[in-house]
């Protein structure tokens, strides 16, 4: 393994791009914050904080999906991802960063009593509303704050522990017993994360952070829908980084076989996302109860119609048609293109999930959305590249590495 380049060096152009994005995006973010976020007009406030909210929640969940990928692979003792696991780990180091931003934004909204975003914050309205009153056991500021704090802290902590266990594979060769113990240790660490992930991303967190914007409305599909959306985007992000880093001459042990399996995840979970999209839509369409159709009214028949269906085209039809063939999943250029498309598509999905409920009358997609997106992408590029450079790119003593090298799809 002498010829393996273990140390990632951040290319200058990448840094330039990251700083440029952070600069332009940060300027848009600050300008928006002072002209809209702190303006006296509630409409403007909702516009700014809603936009910031869906961006920060989206990127937190996407980065967390990278750690979810590592944990379920570890739990299933899947060896194929070992050759590029450090990429996913590097992406997951962003969870504390984006998590803190999310926390700050949510706290500003909840403590600042922004009841135009979360209607359930309006105490007087809740007390006169039997539906919201019945939900106060769950939808109240105290529980929201405690659960959000706990969630972001534990995501970060369990993720940190998993990365630490991964670093132990750099210390030196392992004999059979050490390797066995190491394997069990990884599975226990992954178990903690997965259970907590199930309690948060796959259930409560989307209810609290996103679904409660429509305080009266609920859907049993919502959390899975959000999870599927963020997970498929997370796999796309991993694919994009793997392709980029490999393109720069690293990751010699990762090849088409690994790409094929990553692209399979992108394909399969795009279909899974559509399954949830459709299940949520069809049940509400068929029952046709006003309490439920209120969510789709302005999305299917109102201003958000183009975005709502564009969402379906980008996130379902495009992956279905383009990624179906085996040769497409093994083509680095095509998978990179699809990864960008899927990331953008699910960003749009989060956009319509949040802004479709906050700004019902008109679509607000504009400089603010793309500015904030640019800021987050810039931070992501810079910090992922930095944490990639801080560690060897290959866990070269990991007991499963050989199995990953000879992986055959």
């Amino acid at each position, binding site marked *: 393994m002498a010829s393996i380049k273990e140390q990632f060096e951040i290319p200058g152009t990448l840094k330039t791009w990251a700083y440029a994005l952070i600069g332009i995006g940060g300027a848009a973010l600050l300008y928006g914050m002072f002209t809209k976020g702190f303006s006296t007009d509630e409409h403007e406030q909702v516009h700014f904080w809603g936009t910031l909210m869906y961006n920060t929640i989206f990127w937190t969940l996407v980065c967390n999906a990278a750690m979810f990928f590592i944990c379920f692979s570890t739990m299933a003792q899947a060896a194929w991802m070992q050759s590029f696991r450090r990429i996913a780990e590097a992406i997951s180091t962003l969870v504390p960063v984006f998590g803190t931003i999310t926390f700050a934004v949510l706290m500003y909204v909840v403590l600042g009593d922004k009841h135009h975003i979360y209607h359930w914050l309006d105490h007087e309205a809740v007390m006169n509303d039997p539906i919201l009153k019945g939900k106060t056991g769950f939808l109240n500021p105290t529980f929201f704050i405690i659960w959000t704090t706990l969630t972001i802290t534990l995501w970060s902590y369990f993720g940190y522990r998993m990365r630490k266990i991964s670093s132990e594979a750099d210390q030196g060769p392992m004999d059979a017993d050490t390797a066995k113990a190491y394997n069990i240790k990884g599975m226990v660490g992954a178990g903690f994360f997965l259970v907590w992930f199930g309690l948060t991303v796959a259930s409560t967190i989307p209810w609290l952070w996103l679904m409660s914007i429509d305080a009266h409305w609920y859907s049993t599909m919502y959390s899975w829908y959000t999870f599927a959306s963020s997970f498929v985007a997370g796999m796309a992000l991993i694919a994009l980084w793997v392709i980029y880093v490999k393109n720069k001459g690293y990751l010699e042990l990762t090849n088409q076989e690994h790409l094929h399996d990553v692209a399979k995840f992108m394909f399969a979970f795009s279909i899974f996302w559509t399954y949830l999209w459709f299940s949520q839509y069809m049940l509400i369409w*068929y029952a*046709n109860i006003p309490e439920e159709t209120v969510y789709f009214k302005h999305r299917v028949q109102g201003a958000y119609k183009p975005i709502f269906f564009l969402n379906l085209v980008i996130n379902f039809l495009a992956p279905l048609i383009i990624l179906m063939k085996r040769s497409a999943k093994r083509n680095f250029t095509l998978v990179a293109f699809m990864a960008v498309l899927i990331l953008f598509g699910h960003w749009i999905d989060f956009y319509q999930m949040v802004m479709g409920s906050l700004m019902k009358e008109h679509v607000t997609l504009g400089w603010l959305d793309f500015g904030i997106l640019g800021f987050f992408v810039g931070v992501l590029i810079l910090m992922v590249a930095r944490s990639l450079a801080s560690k060897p790119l290959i866990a070269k003593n990991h007991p499963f590495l050989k199995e990953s090298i000879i992986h055959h799809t």
Partner: protein
Amino acid sequence: MAQKKFVVGCFDDEATLFPAVKQVRNAGYKIKDVYTPFPVHGLDHALGMRETSLHTAGFIYGITGTTTAISCISWIFTKDWPLNIGGKPHFALPAWIPIIFELTVLFAAVGMVLTFCYLCQLAPGVKKHHFHKRATDDLFVMVIECTDKTNADDLQALLKSNGAVETETQIAEDGWWFGTYDKEDDLYNQKQLA
């Protein structure tokens, strides 16, 4: 079905099989198939077999299922027997999606299984010639179909020199047949006579 002449070489190890496959192919012989006790990764590439078209067939069956479902349901519910179901439009696409999906899966699955069985010549009551009794037990059995130009003795020597533990020349039924293995006994007798 036609009876053909085959040269059979048996190997007891995967590691000797791969170089042997390479040597035999380099010598210009066409390998009919290799029967192995378990799926061997990469053997299909070593044998130079083309990629299967089964998935393309599956895609076509799936599309057929989709088309069948859409045309059938839409004809029934809009032309043949329109019913008012919960005030929904007659052309109620969202409600049909599950059925369209199921029919797509059903057509694709059943079609692919049947195609697979046909391609592998598998069916109830159908028999095929076994080149060696231990072919799927613990031996890797390489079968080479002889042409007019093939010298069976040379080929057997080549197989032996590449690590075959057992070689023989057989005249055997090439395809599948309905019935019993009587035919095989006939062939066994023929071989004894020869």
